[in-house]
């Protein structure tokens, strides 16, 4: 369980950052819903696993949080991207694209290309 989390955490964090970047401040449930929608329900993690990652990002200073009112008018914690978080997102996006491009090229390589 724990080991699986470690692998997921990196990508999950990136998804959270991107979601907050695109949609602005959101509460935990909102973030979970958006991630589900964007990943077209392919990715189904337990929604609860989000919260430790949110805390981690907050302790790193990538996001901040404050109390606000939810849709059904109750207290909910809203998360917002900080300037540090935006920079982190940009850096990680670049890294991600780079990695994806390299992996992509590996898959496209045919035997004759290497001769």
């Amino acid at each position, binding site marked *: 369980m724990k080991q699986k989390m470690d692998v997921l955490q990196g990508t999950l964090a990136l998804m959270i950052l991107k979601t907050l970047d695109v949609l602005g401040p959101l509460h935990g449930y909102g973030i979970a*819903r958006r991630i589900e929608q964007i990943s077209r329900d392919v990715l189904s993690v337990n929604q609860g696993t989000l919260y430790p990652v949110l805390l981690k990002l907050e302790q790193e200073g990538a996001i901040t949080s404050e109390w606000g009112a939810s849709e059904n008018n109750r207290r909910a914690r809203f998360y917002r991207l900080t300037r540090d978080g935006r920079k982190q997102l940009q850096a990680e996006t670049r890294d991600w694209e780079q990695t994806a491009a390299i992996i992509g090229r590996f898959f496209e390589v045919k035997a004759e290309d290497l001769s």
Partner: protein
Amino acid sequence: MRSLRRFFTRLANFVTRRRDDERLKEEIEEHIALQTAENLRAGLSPAEARRQAMLKFGAVEAIKEDYRAERGMLFIETLLQDIRFGLRMLRKSPGFTAVAVLTLALGIGANTAIFSLVDGILLRPLPYPHSDRIVYFGWMDKQRLIPDLNVPELEFCRDRAASFAAIAGFQGYGDQELNQDASKSWVTTAFVTDGFFETLGVNLQLGRPFGREFTRAGGAFAAVLSDSLWRSVFGADPNIVGRQIVLNNQSYTVTGVLPPDFKYTQPADLFVSAHLGHSLGDEGLNTDVIGRLKPGVSLAQGRAEARLLGTEFFAQASPEQHQGAGFLHLDLLQEYLASDYRTTLLMLFSAVGLLLLIACANVASLLLARAVSRQKEISIRLALGAGRRRLLQQFLAEGLLLGIFGAASGLAAAVASLRVFVSAIPWDLPSIDRIGLDSRVLLFTSLVAIAASIVFGLASFLQTRKLDLNSTLKDGRAVAGASRGRVSVLNSLVVGEVAISLVLAFGAGLLIESLYQLHQVKLGFNPAHLVVMHTPFTPPLASSTANVWDFERQALARIRAIPGVQSAAIVSVAPLHGQGNLPVQRENHPEDSIGGTEYRSISSNYFSTMGVPVLRGRVFDQSDFASSAPAAVINETLARDWWAGENPIGNRIVLGEYQGRQYLQIPQPALQVIGVVADVKGMLLTAPTPAMVYVPASQGFSLNGSTDWVIRASAPAGIATALRKAITDVAPDQRVTDLQPMTALIGASVSQPNFEALLMGTFGGLALLLMLVGVYGVLSFQVAQRTHEIGVRIALGATRREIWRLVVGRASKVAVVGVLIGLFCAFGLTHLMASLLYEVRPTDPLIFASVAVAVLFVALLACYLPARRAMKVDPMVALRYE
């Protein structure tokens, strides 16, 4: 950056104990509420909507845990928890804790104390700058460095060597009379050549070291004062440099003052310039030669040059000038000074290491035994989902606690006893004052404690690996038959303990036997009721033999008049109280000459006072003292060496002659041998008796500037004051030193073997004690484990005797295996300590046998109580317990 920020936030959370579990709880509730609402909109029933929301959210407790782990320092939190729990466990079984901590304290304390010695003497550099460049010269002969050079060799090397910044000689210590402002005091003087302080690299706090002009025979003398003498006698006079002081009626120019903490091998009040000439002492191997290698010159380069210099010296010197054998060699001064103690220290260090091993085995077996009673607790933990890692952490924490308590108590014991311990060390070393607990010793202790803790933690943890949850929990009690694995672990612990304690006990046995042999050494005289004292002559007295003999005769008459004194005599050097030798040759027989023949000038009744048997001829009588006819008495060894079997009486010997050359400045007439007496030990108890020549004190000359007195009295204890008075009545200024019973002198000469035997005896005894406790613990545990089985046996008709045999038989088999392994190891190890033994072979079969029996006895003693307990098992109780 980011992870650093995260770390500090977590640290802050941990320190401030921030626990906003409320926030997460609220967030989760809201999350689930929102999801439920969503599900309701999708058309689910309210109950199903909430259920689905919960499912989608996941295991709330697991998430809370992850959240908490993210927030604070989980590792430290659980560690603190483990430590708290460990403390509780230790408090719950005070008996176990006390035994374990005491055992460890013993092991760690002994290790700390001995490591302080090893560190101070072998590891830490000498207290001089760049002491790794200070070397000691000697002749290397048959793999052994023979210390001391003669003065021509010293001068030859000093004047030619290129690898050395300085080379200097040291000619020992002596007591001299310091005349200062009409008051007299006795000071300890060291005789050194120029370059001595430069070689050691010591910077004087005032003035400078003396130059070579002060070491020429016939020239002036110079002195460098110690800080304490400068302060006590000269009132810390800042203008002391250049002043003249008077020592033994000889004037010395003060050239400098040493820094406060300077010491060579022994404390000295001042260092004076030795005059290098061609005296008897200078021609003999009597000068310690030290040198300082130039920066950048390696020890190997220095050695190569020394070897070359030795060969060159040999080529140019006349044969009798070359007294060394083999080739000229260097050792680091530190290694040379420690060489006599290296074996002892390493032996002691290994001994305490082994002791610690036993202590650890003991605690490990206790823990192992206890682990069984904790099986249920651990099974429950595992069943509740404790990870193996978490269990390991908990066991390590418990081990760490034991280790810390053990180390702390051991350290406290070592600190408390170290001063006493160090003062008992009979060695002269520059570093002895610095032996103490410093950071390295503390580091060593902590390392030992941590290593021990890990061993304990792992030992307990490994126990849980094979734990079968089902059966343990179902049974509701510890598994009846101990598993085969545990039995073998426990047995091998017992085997190890028995084997190691045997090795230690055997080492101790050898040293004790050696000490016993030393006490059995034939002294050659009767030490009972014998008192010895020493009188270093004041300068005017020492100037002539007639003066000295006059003083001695008068003082002897007064001493003999003291009530209780049976007889009294003088001898220039009493047995075991030093040496005084010179070359002696059989007249006209250059092949019969000995460079260092012990020379004793005595009064007429010396032999009768000491109880030395006369073997041939006669000893001196009054007529020999009255006449000037030169006569000598020789000892058995000399008679055997030169006249093997023939009668030496009537033959003549020449003092100061060696292989045809006369070394004395004022040649002495040849002496006629008038008698042969039995051998009396020389300076060392352990060395074979040297050749010895006795002459009447009326004719003799003083080699040492002092004489010893031997007094046989019916009640030696009460006559000290009377003896001193007898001396000062004749010569008011005369000093009396070293007044002591002969037995004390003998005791001092065996102080090193005594020290070794005492320590090793203690360690051997402790090893046996620990082994006793360990075997007892293991066996008690095993008997307790088998209570049920034993009950069944008794119920089925086994007699007490059979039960006894069952328990003791199995234990003794294990013990015998331990003894055999121990004997095997001891056989391999003890030859390393051969150099510490006197008249005992390292494989002495009698000691082997007796130690083996003793160890076996202790092991069986440990079985006694558990076996009795087994015999008293009440079958009814044992079975009902099921």
